[in-house]
């Protein structure tokens, strides 16, 4: 039943394309409707997805299509001159749908829940209204942007800085894994905007004397659904107690929960819901396909595919940190320029890996879901799902790393006999069957011997690596404890 509804929805979206987008006013009435579902919300995650669908449709009913006219420039949205200039400098030719619909609402000073496809310019959609408000009344510690991963936080701050350069914006990034002291110093300078991961921000609120968010005017949660769910929940609750209630709150994501309990957590005040896509929509320019084969040939298939697409830049997503490490070694030993990225690396090597990939020094990034959300890396040609994500939302975010901002891209999912159920669920959520990737199976099998050799090598190397790490751990017990504490404070996707 749920799937049917989605289909009807996606039709609507097609209709509304080219500037015709829905704007949903989520008035209290709607919230009441949703509250009926509250009792069911304790149920299992699997069901949760479906429930959310229903909630969504409930909201859909009250939808009314507004603003049909074409908007070609930021000026028309009411954005002031200097920021328009900055947009031009960043080569934003015209506002994207999410920007068209959320910016005017946010400029009015309303709370916004923004839902738009991956790569559709959500960061600017919340950055511009904040910068404009700041321009009108400059004050220190004006806005705080929360992001679930450190890399995303850096990326957001970069965008803020380049947009805000003209108005002399000061922006600080407060994330785990970096030196507390220099962050304290940055906070002491009272920047206008703080981009932070929740754990470290809490740490500073508790331990850095002279720093508080009592004057905060804007709170933004990017990848809001992630921030509002179980892992970050308690910290977010604590944070919100330290932030004044008289503030504007903006929530943005490509996938959005509409569960009341979660949204209540963000304590919005009569928010406007701006949805440019349904929650589980992928971009049209994205070519999605899958491959089905027995589990034992997984590495061989992977190597074959990587070889096929040699020279293109791609992200390979695996489930565990260990797997990313192993695959990177395996690929490297076969002569592919691969680099791992996962949550167990130090922050500096994480940033290093990302920069190498961004600059093109390495064309293959092997990552966990830490890189699934929000990262805007231009020119990713392909996303390879080595492991099928357990969470269908994660799938949307993963494949959203390619085909960004109107470009083309493709995604490939490796499905084995064990992943079948997960995969079908994703197809269900997407509401369409994907095509099978055409492949010459015999050609793949030709590689198996070479891959087997590389596998053994990789396993050996992993063993050495682990032995080294263990030694380091026993060497620096005191350090380890401290770091562990910090990591706990800054839980994120691994």
């Amino acid at each position: 039943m749920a799937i049917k509804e989605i289909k009807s929805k996606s039709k609507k979206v097609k209709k509304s394309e080219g500037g015709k987008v829905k704007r949903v006013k989520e008035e209290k009435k709607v919230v009441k409707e949703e509250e009926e579902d509250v009792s069911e919300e304790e149920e299992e995650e699997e069901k949760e997805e479906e429930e959310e669908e229903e909630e969504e449709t409930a909201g859909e009913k009250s939808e009314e299509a507004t603003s049909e006219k074409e908007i070609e420039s930021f000026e028309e949205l009411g954005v002031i001159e200097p920021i328009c200039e900055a947009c031009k400098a960043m080569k934003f030719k015209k506002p994207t749908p999410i920007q068209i619909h959320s910016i005017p609402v946010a400029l009015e000073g309303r709370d916004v829940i923004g839902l738009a496809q991956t790569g559709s310019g959500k960061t600017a959609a919340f950055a511009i209204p904040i910068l404009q408000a700041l321009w009108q009344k400059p004050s220190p510690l004006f806005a705080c942007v929360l992001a679930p991963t450190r890399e995303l936080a850096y990326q957001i701050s970069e965008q803020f800085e380049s947009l805000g350069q003209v108005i002399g914006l000061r922006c600080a990034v407060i994330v785990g894994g970096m030196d507390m002291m220099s962050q304290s110093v940055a906070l002491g300078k009272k920047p206008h905007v703080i981009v932070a991961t929740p754990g470290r921000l809490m740490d500073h609120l508790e331990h850095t004397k002279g720093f508080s968010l009592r004057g905060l005017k804007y709170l933004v949660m990017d990848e809001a659904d992630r921030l509002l769910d179980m892992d970050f929940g308690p910290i977010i609750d604590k944070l919100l107690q330290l932030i004044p209630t008289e503030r504007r709150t903006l929530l943005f994501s490509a996938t959005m929960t509409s569960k009341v309990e979660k949204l209540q957590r963000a304590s919005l005040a009569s928010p406007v819901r701006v949805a440019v896509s349904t929650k589980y929509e992928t971009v049209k320019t994205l070519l999605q396909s899958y491959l089905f084969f027995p589990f034992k040939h997984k590495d061989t298939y992977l190597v074959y595919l990587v070889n096929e697409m040699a020279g293109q830049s791609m992200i390979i997503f695996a489930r565990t940190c260990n797997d990313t490490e192993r695959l990177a070694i395996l690929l490297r030993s076969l002569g592919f320029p691969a680099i791992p990225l996962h949550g167990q690396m130090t922050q500096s090597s994480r940033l290093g890996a990302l920069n190498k990939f961004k600059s093109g020094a390495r064309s293959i990034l092997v990552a966990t879901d830490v890189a699934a959300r929000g990262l805007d890396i231009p020119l990713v040609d392909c996303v390879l799902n080595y492991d099928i994500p357990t969470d269908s939302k994660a799938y949307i975010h993963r494949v959203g790393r390619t085909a960004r901002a109107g470009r083309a891209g493709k995604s490939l999912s490796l499905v084995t006999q064990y992943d079948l159920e997960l995969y079908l669920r994703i197809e269900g959520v997407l509401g369409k069957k994907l095509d099978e990737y055409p492949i010459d199976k015999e050609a793949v099998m030709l590689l198996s011997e070479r891959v087997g050799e590389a596998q053994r090598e990789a396993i050996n190397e992993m063993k050495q690596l682990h032995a080294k790490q263990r030694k380091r751990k026993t060497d620096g017990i005191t350090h380890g404890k401290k770091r562990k504490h910090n990591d706990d404070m800054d839980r994120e996707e691994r």
Partner: protein
Amino acid sequence: MAKAEHKKFVKRRSVHEVAAAVKTKRAGTKKIKVEHDASKVKHEETTQVKAESEDDDEEEEEEHLDDDDDDSASDISEDESGSTDPFHRHFSHPHQQTLKKLIGRVQAKGWVSEKIKPVVDGEPAKYSINFMTLGGAKMLDEINVADATLESLNTKGRLVEPFKAANKGFVQEKNKTFSPVQEAVASRILANEDVLFAPRTISSGQQLQNLYTLHMLNHIFKTRDTVLKNNAKLAKRADADDSLELRDQGFTRPKALVILPTREACYKLVSTILKLTAPSQPENFRRFQQEYHSDATIPDTKPEDFRRLFSGNNDDNFRIGIKFTRKTVKMYSEFYNSDIIIASPLGLRLAIGDKTDKKRDFDFLSSIEILILDQTAAIAMQNWEHILHIFAHLNLIPQDSHGCDFSRIRNWYLDGEAKYLRQTLIFSEFITPEINALFTHHMNNVGGKAKYLPVYNGVLGDIGTPMNHTFMKFYSSSPQEDPDKRFKYFTTKALPSLMRQSSASSAGTIIFVPSYVDFVRLRNYFEQEHQIGRKLGSSGFEFSAVNEYTSTSDLTRARALFKDGKHKVLLYTERLHHFRRYVIRGAESVFMYSLPDNPTFYVEISRFLLRSVSDGIAEQDAIVVRSLFSKWDAFKLERIVGSAKFAKMCAGAGEIFEFS
């Protein structure tokens, strides 16, 4: 081969320097003292830890006390932007754009130099001033101190009377505040500019100390009062209003650092501080007196500057924090609760620790706003590396917050610009290339800097009796190759004639070697010659070599052998002379491998020869002092032959210059 060998020595020396050298040297100085408790260092450390825990809660109370004393006249209203007080213009509210511009100029090394020969009472002064400014905008206007009163110079009320009383003995004219020496530097010091004052003398030492102590205390009291007042202001507003921007402090509390050579010097400084603050009862003072002061004296036979420096407690390993509360002064306060840190280079170096040390702490140096080096010439005779080490750790952004309130830290601290605002004052008896390097590289005060250089008359006339002085110049294109060129010149040109002469006479030759590196190189060379000589069947080349690390018994023996003419050559270092001031007997000639930094040493060593004449060992006509110099020795040469002659000697084509 010689070069490689030399490098080896340098290396050896550098290791030596850090560890052993200091220790042994310290041991050397200790011996001069009549009594010295060897376990003192350890004792102090343990007690210092104790003092930490002692650190009372009274602090908290005191923090909230309102400003209630008589300073209201000099207290500044809330808007200080229009104030003429250097404290506000330089430290608390510097003009943002001017500051950024000036820092840019410092970074670009855009110093503009201006040389002035001041005239005092119609006669040219005994010093010249080299002003270094950054051109264009200035942090503040010139201060005229000639007829100013302390009040008009923004001095805290509570310092005025005590200073007048303490300074009374030095002021010559009735209406004046300062003595002539003080007046010469006060306009710079009180304007928070950097000063390198090289004409420090025994008589002007205390006057300078009075002046810089006044300035330092004034700065600390102003800082402290502002902080306390703002505390009160914040407490009144409670947390209702966050918009209040009160940036009035650094990362940590210590604001002034004074580096002195000995404990006794520290005791004298603290006495001056107490005179100016007149506290009812300084805390821990009895203990301070015990550990930093002794009545040990040195016999009158030694020169006066030596007695001044080494009498009393001459231990060169100490560090102490001093904290001011509203009513009193507390010694041995924990560094992070102190306003002033007084330390010797060694003591502070040990506190900072090395890179290899597991636990190091130098955050207490992060917020030093006034740095003073007094008796720097004596410090230069200790281990200069420590000084560089200290400078390298000054005004860094700390590694730990130490509970500081980030919303009240001044912006230029957060921007890491503290080193461009720090005021550095160096008082020295003479200038060495090392001290000059501090002036060039480490004194980056945006307020500008001034170097006071004495005009020297030369010391050749001070010896008393005319004798022959020969200065031999050799050429070297850079200070780096100077040691090699010097060694080559010495062994090929100077040494053969020296040997010929000394074998003809029964009296000996002192070879004076200021640098330890050169000393080791020469000693090895002589050793080699000796071995070769013995192999060839002669008695070899007998010589003694003594330096600052030589034990007393070895020293005595070497001196006796030399006096009796059994050893014709004695290698003698400058540091040994600095720490012992022996009179070496039995010499007919002196060869200065390099000139001494301290011009007095030239006189004293030359007088060894007069002693030989009166002992009947040498003929008045035969005695001669020969010196080797290159253009890199200009500073040293100036002090010995006088400002009028040295330039010609350095620049001229001549190789040998004789005076008699």
